[in-house]
């Protein structure tokens, strides 16, 4: 695969506008934040809007195909800097980056818009928009880069931005802890990618995608080295996309403001791992072992996330585990080689998950920052818009036809079967059922029955409010209960959610039509033959598979209805919820002890090592060396100072003796 040299000559302004508009917005708001105050929001929105419009304007260039010699090239390329041979840095604009940029800037704009309502009155209002714009810039850097180093830079900046945003309410210790946890886990991923870059540069001598993929196609990598490179890249994916065992930062990251959860933890950042694998598919095509591993980890994550979602009481944590589970689906898809299905699921998921989070934000905002579903209930009549919005998005995530989630999830699940992974198919179907169960559990508890907000939490078995996800400090005090009584203009928050309905309902139709669907046509130039449907390898047809999935989903909904939705359950909801809270299995409450295991296996040994170095190695070895070097320097200075007398004749004598020594030396050499 040769380097893109066509498409765009010179400086391609729209691409720079897409890339840099959010950065400009962030800098302006950062620099003038205190004096901008209420203008921070509109400026932040405008920056993303510019980026989005530039994306639409350059759509054709992303999908343009050019024939150069024997190969067909797709998209456009903008070179930026050449450091050395093989170290060209540039921007790549092709259908895959287009897909991501559309979501980042499009849904990102809606979330910015929503934030103007949600964050109104917060004392960090301007700072919030600076961080959000900076995050979008970092994400665009990641997606638009044409080389691994640019990717890593974007990857790291995204981690930094998420650190800012998760820890936005820095007065809360829990938010700071969550931000730190997310950052540290993400850095683990950064290091993984760094090692992958070392391997790639060592083998092909270049950091650009094109050279690396050409090297993989030409079998320059030995199988074990390619496997290692993929493995290292996957460490990055696992950290960023919250795959087992690096997943535990994602639920904690719900400490950030709700729009942050929608932007970072649903629509963009956590799907960067999917992007990385989809972008580097030629590497994965070369290593079947690596694909196997990715598929298995994706399946495990999908299932584990769903199981943990069952046990959550915090509305945002339920959504966080569903995110983890859905990303497991995407990773599973790209792991079995169904790259287009994985990217499609990213695309539809961005819509309905953003809608879920933003709707949850509507509820949390109206309930004065209450996040525990046990203290909700009966919101169907109080917030009808939130109810319908949440229901539509939930039906979409459960995969009910003809909503968006149905098409993408079915594509993922069926593709695992088509590509010969029946065990992953089983996991996919099972996870779909559990997803339907816990999502409808949330719907029933939140929206049906009686309102429980005025019930004493201890009656519901809530003993430790700080562990139940209730904010320890109210972020911004609101008066009143009903959303119509709020001082913020509610339409600012309702309008973006209403726009998201469109994608949540219709986005999946892009995939109708198999090999001739718009989606397939868009991505085929990127993935080539890798995504063509293999013929007749599945034991059941796609229609039967869809029916199986749907049946399992209906079963999940039915169980949720029996447990939480029917008249009996709704009547004595309080006692049932208390019972469930008390009898929740410890293994679920403690999230399969993953944090405990990481603490025991990694954190404690690291601390011990750090203590060893801090107490022994550093003071003795390092400090000792430095001290000795200082003493030696002083001694040498004393020695040479005595030579510097200023007596000219002494100098002359020294020179004479020196010259004499030379003469004697050469005389001896000449004699021998």
């Amino acid at each position, binding site marked *: 695969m040769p380097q893109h040299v066509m498409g765009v000559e010179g400086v391609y302004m729209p691409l720079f506008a897409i890339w840099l508009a959010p950065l400009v917005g962030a800098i302006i708001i950062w620099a003038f934040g205190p004096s901008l105050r209420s203008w921070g929001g509109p400026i932040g929105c405008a920056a993303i809007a510019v980026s989005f419009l530039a994306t639409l304007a350059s759509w054709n260039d992303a999908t343009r195909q050019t024939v150069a010699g024997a190969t067909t090239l797709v998209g456009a390329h903008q070179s930026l800097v050449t450091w050395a041979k093989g170290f060209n840095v540039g921007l790549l604009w092709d259908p895959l980056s287009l897909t991501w940029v559309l979501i980042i800037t499009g849904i990102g704009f809606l979330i910015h818009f929503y934030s103007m309502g949600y964050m109104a009155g917060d004392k960090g209002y301007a700072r919030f928009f600076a961080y959000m714009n900076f995050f979008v810039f970092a994400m665009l850097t990641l997606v638009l880069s044409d080389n691994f180093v640019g990717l890593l830079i974007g990857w790291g900046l995204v981690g930094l931005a998420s650190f800012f945003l998760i820890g936005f309410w820095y007065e809360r210790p829990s938010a700071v802890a969550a931000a730190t946890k997310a950052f540290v886990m993400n850095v683990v991923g950064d290091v993984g990618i760094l090692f992958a870059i070392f391997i790639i540069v060592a083998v092909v001598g270049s950091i650009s995608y094109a050279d690396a993929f050409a090297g993989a196609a030409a079998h320059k990598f030995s199988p074990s080295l390619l496997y290692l490179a993929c493995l290292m890249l996957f460490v990055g994916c696992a950290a960023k996309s919250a795959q087992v065992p690096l997943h535990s930062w994602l639920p904690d990251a719900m400490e950030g403001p709700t729009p942050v959860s929608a932007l970072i933890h649903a629509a963009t950042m956590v799907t960067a791992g999917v992007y990385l694998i989809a972008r580097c598919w030629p590497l994965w095509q070369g290593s079947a072992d690596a694909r196997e591993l990715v598929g298995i980890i994706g399946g495990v994550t999908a299932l584990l996330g769903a199981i943990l979602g069952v046990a959550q009481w915090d509305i945002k944590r339920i959504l966080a585990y569903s995110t983890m589970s859905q990303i497991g689906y995407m990773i599973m898809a790209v792991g079995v080689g169904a790259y287009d299905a994985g990217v499609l699921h990213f695309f539809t998921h961005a819509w309905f998950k953003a809608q879920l989070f933003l709707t949850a934000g509507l509820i949390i905002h109206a309930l004065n920052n209450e996040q525990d579903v046990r203290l909700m209930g009966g919101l169907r009549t109080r917030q009808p818009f939130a109810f319908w919005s949440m229901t539509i998005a939930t039906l979409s995530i459960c995969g009910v036809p003809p909503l968006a989630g149905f098409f993408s999830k079915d594509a993922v699940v069926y593709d695992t079967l088509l590509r010969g992974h029946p065990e992953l198919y089983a996991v996919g179907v099972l996870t779909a059922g559990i997803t339907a169960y816990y999502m409808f559990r949330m719907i029933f508890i939140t929206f049906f029955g009686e309102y429980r907000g005025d019930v004493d939490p201890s009656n519901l078995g809530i003993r430790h409010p700080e562990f139940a996800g209730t904010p320890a400090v109210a972020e911004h005090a609101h008066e009143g209960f009903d959303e119509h009584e709020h001082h913020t203009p509610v339409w600012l928050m309702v309008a973006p959610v209403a726009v998201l309905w469109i994608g949540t309902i219709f986005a999946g139709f892009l995939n109708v039509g198999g090999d001739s669907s718009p989606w397939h046509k868009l991505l085929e130039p990127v993935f080539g033959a890798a995504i063509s449907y293999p013929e007749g390898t599945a034991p059941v047809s796609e229609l039967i598979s869809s029916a199986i999935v749907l049946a399992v989903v209906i079963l999940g909904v039915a169980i949720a209805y029996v447990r939480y939705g029917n008249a009996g359950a709704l009547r004595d909801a309080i006692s049932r919820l208390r019972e469930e809270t008390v009898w929740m299995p410890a293994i679920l409450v403690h999230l399969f002890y993953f944090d405990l295991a990481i603490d025991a296996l990694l954190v404690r040994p690291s601390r011990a090592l750090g203590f060893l170095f801090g107490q022994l190695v550093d003071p003795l070895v390092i400090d000792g060396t430095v001290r000795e070097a200082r003493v030696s320097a002083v001694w040498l200075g004393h020695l040479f100072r005595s030579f*510097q*007398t*200023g*007596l*000219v*004749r002494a100098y*002359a*004598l020294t020179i*004479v003796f020196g010259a004499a020594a030379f003469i004697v030396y050469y005389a001896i050499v000449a004699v021998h």
Partner: protein
Amino acid sequence: MQVAVANYIALSAIIFMIGVGGVVARRNPLIMLMGIELMWNAANLAFIAYAKAYMSNAGHVFAFLVITVAAAEAAIGLAIIVIVFRRAENVDVDDVAVLKG
């Protein structure tokens, strides 16, 4: 009668060592300058002797170069000495040690 090159070189070495002795042993800068002058001349003698022995003009060229440089050096040296004398009312090179870095 033909004189061997080695004799010229020996004479040159002797003159050079006298010059070195003058520079190292005396405190009067004028005497030191004269010692340096002797060393230059010893070098010139060696150049000319070799030039004659090997029938090469390079030695003559270098000798002229040395004469020029020696003249310049004497001029600068004398100027420095005059200035030092104006300041210190005597000329002892060891007193110039106050200029050490």
